[in-house]
Structure formats: structure tokens, C-alpha cells
């Protein structure tokens, strides 16, 4: 199943973003995490075997433009509704990973009647003093595989697509992409990924599935319980042998969990 890739004008031409689309059936919008998502992502392919998947890139990611006008959580939340509108979708299943999960949860809190099915995969957005989220932004490139993945060697291969993390040329491209992406992500996540979501979670009406890698070192699994306790009727599924990048390490298990949304 091959993905289509195209640009979409959003918010009456205020922003233009890249969208990957694949599969058929019920529409599902996937909101990516701080590291972005690629067209050939095995996770998108796994989702596409069950749903018609739309994966928009947030401005600052790939060739999506318009990041300068997105300064805070509300702007990004409304932008994401604008994307759903621009794609001509009506109440699609909303799934988000990490930062994308934070955005999806905000959307479901801000406009509870617009979001009926919600999949949150290791979402950011809460702060627990006993289970702090480490500082993602000061990590050096070579520290990322062990931080993000249950299996660091597998993680390094995934992050570099076989290139050498100590090759200055590769590193330069890697860091420039990171700088651009994380400049945007930082507006939601820096220095602490808490923009008040905890106060709004009670508004969520969607049928909600939470999915967490048991070995998540970025957002400790205890955050799963906190989300679960804050959202009426939410269900939490933990996935073994997976870190924060559970969508890459165990894509089929994540899709099976999300399938409970219907």
C-alpha cells in the first residue's frame, strides 16, 4: 500500500502543509511526535492496512510552512482543526504520538463534540513531580537512541537509516533538521511539556485508548495512569519491549490496541 504525498492549503492560505495519505476505510488523522514522521514510516503502513490514514506534517517539519504564526498550544490546537477541515474530514479518528498525542488531547478537550475517537500513544502534556520527563532538548544526537528506544542499537539504525552518527556531514543535516523541527516543538514542550492540559482533560468525551511502551524513558509510563485517571472511560494498554518510539518498535501491537476504538 503506497502513500500519496501532497501539499494542502490550511486556514485560508495562511499555512501550507505536507500530508501523507494511505489506505482506505474509516478516516484516521495521525499527528506525529517531536521527531516528525516520514512517508515510508512502517507505522503509517500498519495504520493504513486498517484505516484511511492522513498524516499531516506540522509547520517546521519537512516542507510544511507557517511555523512563525504558531506560537503556543492554542494556535497549534486550532491549526490542527484547520487541517482536518482542509482535508474535508468530519470527525475522523484522531491519533497522536508524544507531542502529537498532546495536541490530539488538547483538541478533544477544547472541542469535545468534535472528537469522538481518540488514540493517545505515549502523549506528552502532563507533569508529575514523582515521574519527571527528562530534558529532551539538551540531548546530544548520540544520546538519542538509548533515550528513545527500548533497543538502542535498533534505535540508532532507525534514526540514521544506516548513516554514521559521527560523520560530520550527516550530523550537520541531522542537526539542522532537528533545529527546525524542535524550534516548533519547543513552543509546546520547552522547557517543560505542560501547557495546562491537566485542567482540561475532564472535558474529553471521546472513546479514548492510551498506548504506552513499558520501557518508555522519555515520558514515564506512570503518565499513562494519570491520563487514564483524567479521562472518563479511557483504557490503557502497555506494550512490552518498547520504549518511547513504540510506534516503530512494535507497530502491529500499537495498531491492535488502537483497533479497539473501532
Amino acid at each position, binding site marked *: 500500500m503506497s502513500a500519496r504525498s501532497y501539499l494542502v492549503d490550511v486556514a485560508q492560505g495562511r499555512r501550507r502543509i505536507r500530508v501523507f495519505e494511505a489506505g482506505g476505510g474509516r478516516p484516521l488523522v495521525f499527528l506525529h511526535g517531536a521527531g516528525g514522521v516520514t512517508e515510508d514510516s512502517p507505522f503509517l503502513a500498519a495504520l493504513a492496512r486498517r484505516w484511511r490514514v492522513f498524516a499531516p506534517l506540522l509547520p517546521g517539519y519537512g516542507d510544511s510552512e507557517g511555523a512563525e504564526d504558531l506560537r503556543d498550544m492554542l494556535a497549534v490546537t486550532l491549526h490542527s482543526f484547520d487541517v482536518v477541515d482542509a482535508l474535508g474530514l468530519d470527525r475522523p479518528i484522531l491519533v497522536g504520538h508524544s507531542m502529537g498525542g498532546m495536541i490530539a488531547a488538547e483538541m478533544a478537550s477544547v472541542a469535545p463534540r468534535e472528537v469522538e475517537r481518540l488514540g493517545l500513544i505515549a502523549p506528552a502534556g502532563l507533569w508529575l513531580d514523582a515521574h519527571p520527563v527528562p530534558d529532551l532538548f539538551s540531548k546530544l544526537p548520540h544520546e538519542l537512541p538509548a533515550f528513545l528506544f527500548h533497543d538502542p542499537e535498533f534505535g540508532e539504525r532507525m534514526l540514521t537509516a544506516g548513516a554514521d552518527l559521527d560523520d560530520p556531514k550527516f550530523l550537520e543535516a541531522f*542537526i539542522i533538521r532537528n533545529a527546525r523541527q524542535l524550534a516548533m516543538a519547543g513552543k509546546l514542550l520547552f522547557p517543560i511539556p505542560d501547557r495546562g492540559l491537566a485542567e482540561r482533560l475532564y472535558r474529553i468525551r471521546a472513546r479514548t485508548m492510551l498506548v504506552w511502551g513499558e520501557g518508555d524513558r522519555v515520558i514515564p509510563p506512570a503518565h499513562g495512569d494519570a491520563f487514564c485517571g483524567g479521562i472518563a472511560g479511557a483504557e490503557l494498554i502497555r506494550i512490552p519491549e518498547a520504549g518511547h518510539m513504540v510506534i516503530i518498535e512494535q507497530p502491529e501491537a500499537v495498531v491492535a490496541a488502537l483497533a479497539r476504538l473501532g
Partner: protein
Amino acid sequence: MRFVWFNLMPWPDLPEDFREKYRSVWVDIPSALYDPTRGHEVYNTYLDQLEFAETVGYDGLGVNEHHANAYGLMPSPCLMAAALARRTSRAALVVLGSSIALYDPPIRVAEEFAMLDVISGGRLVAGFPVGTSMDTNYAYGRVPGTLRERYAEAHALIRRAWAEDQPFVFNGRYTKLRYANCWPKPVQKPHPPIFIPGGGSVETYDFCIENNYNYSYLSFFGYLRGRRLMDNYWQRVAELGADDSPYRAGFAQSICVAETDAEAERLYGSHVSYFFNRCLHIYPGFVDAPGYRTVKTIQSEFLNQLTRPNLGAAASLSWGELVERGYIVAGSPETVRQRMEELIKTLRVGNIMCLIHMGDMPPEMTRYSTELFARKVMPHLRGIWKDYEADERFWICPLAERAIPAPIAAEAAR
């Protein structure tokens, strides 16, 4: 030529195995390493040194702003300048804080700078740094991606607060003031000279050139490595059609003067090593939060430092290497004069921020080097830009008659 005696105010008691035991001198260094009793002595010693520098002829006294930093113990540079305002009488107070994007509301900076300018009788040089990523993002929690927009707004507010004679409404994105009203206002008109410490982004060049602000490159890595950046700056000055007065620019240089080259190494070697190897031990992950710099200003030179082999190989530089590479200008007065002349002419700078106190250098030694530079080097460099002496745009314009602090009561009674 103008010479500013600058003290970074480093903590002098970092342990010998600091590099091995701690990952950074900045941001996450435990404050358990700070001892307030010793700190009392250290602050007062450093202020003594700044005051001494005025007496031997330096044109300005420099202080700056850092946070959670063991080599820069001035979270509030205005406090240091206030202390200096009363015990000095002639030198410019060069405050290369305040990091205007860090103050809420930023009119606080307009007020504090105005106070300093009034107390000192118009001796303030007002610095408006963006601030490093360590200070602004990591220690002060500012979101990298909106820091520069916040800076631009703070700058607009401060300039307007100094210019207006009536309260005004300021409706910014980050600051909203129904009654923006700066009391007091600065002595110097239309405003004190403004210095911008820069690190090589094109936007900052343009900002300085268009506003007639001094652009000062505060590098610790010396004039040989600073050359490319300053060349780019002067090229931009030409492109924008501005005049090429050297007083548009400043450069910070570490300087060590002794009677002979050999004496310089013997006296200052260990203190210079303390500075470069302990004070500048900064965790690379804190240097550049993603979004702090625009993508186009990220240089591969910097990126190379982040590969694993380079991180491991951060070996100590020897005295010889530091001198040869121009990190420090050190030696006899004649050696120092030659290299400073080369620096001043090749970088085309009218202001030198003299970094003479190095690391854990004791006070007598600091005074010795400070005085030798003032008496035996400065006079030979004074006239380098004499064709531009009439350019008063980039320096203080104090009141002709300034108040002299009265003797304290006990002294007066004696």
C-alpha cells in the same frame, strides 16, 4: 581607541577534577560548589579590581549577565554597575547585560538603566544582549523559538519608554502596559550608547548598523578566530552603505602582561589554564537549544564539536597553543603591543573589552597585569584610530558637572 576593563567574575575555587566530575560549568552545576562566605570576599575583590582599573586609565568598566554559571557570577549586572557608580567618577559603566528578553515587563530594564545613567551622571553604556542559550533557554526557561520575537518587542518598548515624555499604551504580544511610563529617564540623549554583544548572525549585524548600535563580539577564543566573523560584519556595513567608523565595533580579548614573555607564562599560566579548562567546560547540549539560532546561522564548525570523538578529545590546551592561536595575547609589553595592534587593525575595532583577570588569578597579580597594560601598552595603541576621534555616536556623554559622593559621617567627623 577605547579600553574597557572587563571582569567576568568567575568562581575561583572549582576543584581540580572539575572536568571529570561535572558535565558543565553552566546550567546544571550544583550550587553546593558555591560558598557564600568566600563569595563575600570574591565579589568585593572583583569590585576593587574594577575600581582600580579606572584609576590607571581604562575608559570603561565592564560587567555582564549570566545565570547558573560558575564563571560568570553576575545574574544582575545592574547591581554591580550600581556599586561601581558611587565609587568611580570618570569611567563608562559598560553593562553588557541586560538580557532584555528575560525581564517581565521589560520596562524594568529601561528603568534600571535610567537609574544607573542618572546616578552616574551619564556614564552608562547600555548593553542589550539576546543572551546565550544557556542563560535564556536553559536557566531562564524562555522558549527558543519565540526568544528573538520577544527580544525585538522588548527593545521597541525600552527605546520608546526612553523617548516618550508622556505615558503611553504599549500593546505588545508579550507585554501589555496600559501606562508605560519610565521614571526616571536617562541623562544621555536621545539615549545612552547601546552595545549589542553578537555571535555572528546576519540579523544582528543589520540591527546594529541600522540603529547605530555598537556591535561587540565577546568571544573567548581570540582575535585570530574572530577575524572571519568581523570580516563578515564589515562587509555587511559596506553593503548597507554605512560609514566604517571602527567605533561601531568591539572585541573581547584575554590579555596577560608581564615584564617578559617568560615571566608571563610563569605568572599566569595556571590561571589561564583554569579559565580555559575549568571555566569554559560547558556541556555541548546546552550551547544551542533547537530554535535558538536560525537554521542559516548554524555553522558546521560548531556541529563538528558534537561528534563523539571530538567530545572525548576536549584535551587541555597548553600555554604555547593558547598564545599561538591567539586565544590569549600574552607576554612582555612589547609583545602584547604588537599583537594588540594587529588585532585592532585586522578586526577594525575601536573598543577592546580587556579580559585581564583570568580564572582564579589572585588580586595582586591581576593589578600587576592591569597596570602594565595601562601604562606600557595602552599609550602606544591610543592613536590608532585618531582620524575617527570626533565620532561620538558610540560612547558616553556624561554631564560636565557630576556629584561627588560625600564622605561618610564617621570619616567626616575624624
